């Protein structure tokens, strides 16, 4: 346990010492808030709240994909990674610290969105809704964490960054995060339920006072989570076999 915290501490230090990485992590969702949500939906409490939920989901996806996709691919390229395996610790402190650090970065990523929503829009939540919403964001981040790990263990860093970017935007737009939650264009309405984004987003919306989630997006969220989990485990084992057997 103390080793897990030690690993997390130093991994976090490594991350925040590159400030541009932290800025990049928070930029898109915050910028989208400022450009799209504040001017167009800022005055209606429910619309602003749901749009804030969408941007937070976007932020959480982005952090999960980048932290794990790029982070793991980068780690694998560093000789420091095999060195750490010679230390007297199992693989869990390293793996766990990656997940914990991802969560910390996720929190850092949604914080500016939360601040913008609270100060510049009419968005409003009760403390219970806020907690529920954070829980829903956590669930929404799981498939993207697993996709990130899959990409990170499968590809070299340069390929991973491209793939992560290719995955992020279509998933966010296709899932309807940048549209009205209740009245999306026909194409998005047709595609969205089959993307992992939508199930997560509907959970977040429901948590903060929006409509109840529909069954299809939730089932697809579960399917994506299971499939991405299987792929992540496969890629992890494959990497272990190549580098450490």
């Amino acid at each position: 346990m103390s080793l897990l915290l030690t690993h997390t501490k130093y991994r976090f230090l490594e991350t925040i010492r590159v400030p541009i990485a932290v800025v990049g992590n928070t930029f898109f969702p915050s910028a989208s808030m400022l450009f799209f949500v504040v001017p167009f939906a800022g005055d209606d409490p429910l619309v602003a709240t749901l749009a804030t939920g969408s941007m937070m989901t976007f932020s959480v996806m982005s952090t999960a994909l980048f932290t794990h996709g790029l982070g793991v691919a980068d780690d694998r390229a560093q000789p420091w990674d095999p060195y750490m395996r010679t230390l007297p610790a199992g693989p869990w402190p390293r793996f766990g610290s990656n997940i914990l650090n991802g969560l910390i970065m996720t929190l850092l990523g949604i914080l500016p969105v939360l601040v913008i929503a609270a100060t510049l829009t009419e968005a409003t939540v009760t403390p219970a809704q806020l907690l529920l919403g954070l829980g829903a964001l956590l669930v929404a981040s799981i498939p993207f964490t697993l996709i990130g790990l899959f990409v990170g263990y499968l590809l070299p860093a340069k390929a991973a960054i491209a793939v992560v970017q290719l995955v992020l935007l279509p998933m966010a737009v296709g899932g309807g995060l940048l549209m009205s939650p209740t009245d999306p264009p026909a194409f998005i309405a047709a595609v969205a339920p089959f993307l992992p984004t939508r199930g997560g987003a509907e959970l977040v919306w429901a948590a903060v006072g929006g409509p109840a989630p529909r069954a299809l997006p939730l089932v697809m969220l579960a399917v994506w989570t299971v499939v991405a989990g299987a792929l992540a485990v496969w890629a992890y084992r494959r990497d272990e076999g190549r580098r450490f057997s």
Partner: protein
Amino acid sequence: METLARAIEVTRRYGSVTALDGVSLDIRRGELVGLLGPNGAGKSTLINLFAGLRRPHSGRVELFGGSPADPVRRRDIGVTPQETGLPSTLRVREVVDFVTAHYPRGAARGELLERFGLTGMERRQIGGLSGGQKRRLAVALAFAGNPRLVFLDEPTTGLDVEARRTLWDAVRDFHAGGGTVVLTSHYLEEVEALAERVVVVDRGRVLADDTVAAVRDIAGMRHVTLTAGELPDLPGVVRAERDGSRVLLLTADADALVRALVRADVPFTGLEIRPTSLEEAFLTITARESQAA
């Protein structure tokens, strides 16, 4: 004498390349062993096996009587990271504390840094250190857990003379205090300066496992090349090769060989005598091995 690490008939391949081919080696307590061999000889693979990073395809590797894959067995070893991999945004103090936190009885940071000439660098970011400082820090990390056995892979490659001496002194002090050291090098000089026992490795096989003096004798061979026709039997020739009209002779005593050549009154031109490189010494040992087989 207690055996700390042991390889028994170990074979390890990477794809179609055989990195280790039936290697057996015992590392006993208090030894200072030099693994000597050219790049790609299998030295690093052997260390990776002992450190638990790789598994053998056949044979067995033991560390303190157990498997190196078991973290508990690795509590008493220390390994050097490649200095290019040190996390560049962390400070010296932080990376030492991080590594030390893994061991039940870690070294005191100040004292560890002093041993490796890094006093006063605690707050420096690793990315800002010179190559030599990074290398010394990397070697220092192998000692962070107060290990009983350290594996140092090419510890002084690229260091200037003074930094090399500092490092050698630290390794000698550790050994004098009862520590066991396995170091790899392709510098004969380094192995001569530090090691008592030399294991010569090439193409995945142990070619010689002997005292430093014995291996130095092999490496003390001379190459004698000359242009000549048919040569009579000459004394002390370990190996003879002909390349067109040039003849290459390998001998431990070049002076005696030249005197014998002159006495035999054979016509020759273009006499050259040069010391063998370590690599050629390995070849000598290989040649002997295949003759014996």
